[in-house]
């Protein structure tokens, strides 16, 4: 099985770290197996003497980590879970029931799905927006990253490191700084519209255009808000669900693909370098075409990298926040709202922390479910493990 947690333990550095993250997300309780490599490498030696002091030193060495991650990560999640069951407004102690804070049970969660109102409207719109966003960003950035990696991996290529650097550079810059640049590029008087004008195309007003791309396509074939699309799902008409990303959201999609492809390209390059040359040559001798080779030789062999890139893509895209914050805060007409941004706005803008926290936990769940589903789909039939399992690993 081409699974991430079978990567060798001497994976140094970030993709190793990311792989760990992926393994942890998609494997549920990461006990046993996860801890095993280290244990195997350093077999238990007899205690006492030199080794005897290691117990105390070990705990001392990990103490700062445990304190910081405990205080600023684990415990706060518990606090937020509590707040998501209350109607806390930010102006009292959220943990003292009665003085301005009441326990409302699951209301913050049910309001997102079952109660007609602004909260549900916004939340469902943000889910719809982000669904299209993920649907476009993940495949396109994966394909672009793979394409760039294949181009750069050509052994005869001159100036390889120049191209690699050029493609990778956007990935290391601040998301806020890049979003600022794109705000200018796509502004009404910006470079993109100036470029389109060279070909006689009158570019749209990107950031104020709330028309959905799928709606535009429907309109082009003469369909506009037809009767068959009037049924409501979670308070939104089917027609609204079918809008596709708005023109404004399209800019953000474009931006994110542009910035993240470089990182994923590096992962593919690393995977491609691992391919044994003999296989390449055998495929060439057999007279396979380039496309056949890619489809039947290269892709299957870099499946672990593909798995990693898609999983990281899904995890990252569902959390889109920075770009939304800078590029319109949900405008126009809520078509760039993402659940992460809405959760922030609900808490820090409307002071409805309980509702905001509930949204965050729902997104968390969506990410966990999707990464598992994706893992299930990409795993070969024979190696599949149950999609969901109660309890830990054996």
């Amino acid at each position, binding site marked *: 099985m081409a699974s991430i947690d079978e990567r060798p333990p001497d994976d*140094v550095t970030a993709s190793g770290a990311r792989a760990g993250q992926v393994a942890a997300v998609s494997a549920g309780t990461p006990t046993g197996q*996860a801890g095993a490599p280290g244990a195997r490498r350093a077999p238990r030696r007899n205690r006492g003497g030199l080794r005897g002091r*290691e117990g105390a030193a070990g705990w001392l060495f990990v103490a700062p980590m445990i304190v910081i991650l405990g205080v600023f*990560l684990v415990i706060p999640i518990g606090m937020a879970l509590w707040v998501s069951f209350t109607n806390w407004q930010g102006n009292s102690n*959220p943990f003292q029931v009665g003085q301005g804070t009441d326990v409302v049970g699951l209301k913050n969660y049910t309001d997102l799905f079952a109660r007609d109102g602004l909260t549900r409207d916004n939340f469902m719109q943000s889910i719809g927006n982000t669904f299209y966003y993920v649907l476009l960003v993940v495949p396109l950035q994966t394909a672009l990253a793979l394409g760039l990696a294949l181009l750069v991996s050509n052994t005869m290529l001159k100036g390889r490191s120049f191209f690699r650097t050029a493609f990778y550079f956007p990935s290391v810059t*601040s998301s806020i700084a890049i979003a600022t640049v794109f705000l200018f590029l796509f502004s009404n008087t910006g*470079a993109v519209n100036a470029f389109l004008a060279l070909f006689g195309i009158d570019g749209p007003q990107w950031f104020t255009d709330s028309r959905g791309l799928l709606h535009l396509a429907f309109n082009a074939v003469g369909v506009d808000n037809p009767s068959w699309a009037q049924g409501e799902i979670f308070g939104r008409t089917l027609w609204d669900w079918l809008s596709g990303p708005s023109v404004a959201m399209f800019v953000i999609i474009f931006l994110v693909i*542009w910035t993240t492809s470089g990182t994923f390209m590096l*992962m593919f390059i690393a995977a491609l370098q691992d391919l044994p040359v003999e296989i390449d040559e055998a495929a060439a001798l057999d007279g396979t075409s380039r496309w056949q080779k890619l489809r039947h030789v290269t892709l299957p062999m870099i499946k672990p990298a593909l798995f990693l890139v898609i999983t990281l893509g899904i995890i990252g895209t569902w959390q889109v926040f920075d770009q939304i914050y800078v590029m319109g805060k949900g405008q126009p007409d809520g078509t760039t709202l993402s659940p992460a941004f809405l959760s922030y706005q609900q808490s820090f803008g409307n002071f409805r922390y309980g509702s905001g926290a509930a949204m965050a936990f729902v997104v968390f769940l969506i990410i966990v479910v999707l990464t598992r589903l994706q893992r299930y789909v990409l795993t070969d039939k024979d190696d599949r493990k149950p999609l969901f399992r109660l309890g830990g690993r054996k």
Partner: protein
Amino acid sequence: MIERRSNPVKTILLYAALLAFAVFFIYPFLIQISTSFKTDPDAANNPLSLVPNPVTTQVWQRIFGQTGDSSVPVTTWVQNSFIVTLVVTAARVFLDSLAGYALSRLQFRGRNAVFAALLAVMAVPGVALLIPKFLMVNYLGIYDTYTAMILPLIVDAAGVFIMKQFFDSVPVSIEEAARMDGASIFRTFWSVVLPMAKPALITLTILSFQGSWNEFSHFLVVTKGTPEHQTLVTGLASLTSGQLGSGTQYPLKLGTALLATIPVAVLFFALQRYFIRGANEGGVKG
């Protein structure tokens, strides 16, 4: 490889494709640089041009506080960015390698449980942490302080994981010798192990610097957003999203964005191979 004897047309097409992509990825940065030397009307009228006409350094004078206009306090932002980034990076590199070493080498009861917990923590998506961080910072009474900006960032689970994986890959014999000679555990770690871990430490330093310099959402939720505790990135975000001043001010925004890009860019071009290792040495070795 056999297909290397491909015909010249294909080679030309390959380079054309590569060049097109290179322009695609680099041109926005070139526009950014030139626009920061343009006047507002020039930026709006000639958005594609790489040559400012007329050339003006007004934006940069304003950024460095030479114009007496303090509505966009970039110098304060820069100062905050450096304070926070340097403290976080130094602390993170030390604490991450300390914990990574213990998890890799030291035998202590509960080690596997700690490592499993670490992996679980790494799996938590950042989006689920905004409100939690705010709640804890508020609870501790450190809202809108440097402490709140720095303390939660000084250990990161991914960094600990990187260091643990690194130490797992290094042979244990040299440290054993030091230990046999009677050096204490910390002394061995500090004088023998860390010097050997230089490549991993550089990688971790880069990741920490880049991460905390570019950090946005954490600072957004633990501070009020007054210049006093704004970094270059959060300050830029308030400038860009139109909270400061009127008009489009694109040259000013792009200049500030450029300033926010420069430190990481310098680091990137100086230590490129470590960046690439940072993005994934694992795959290369695997």
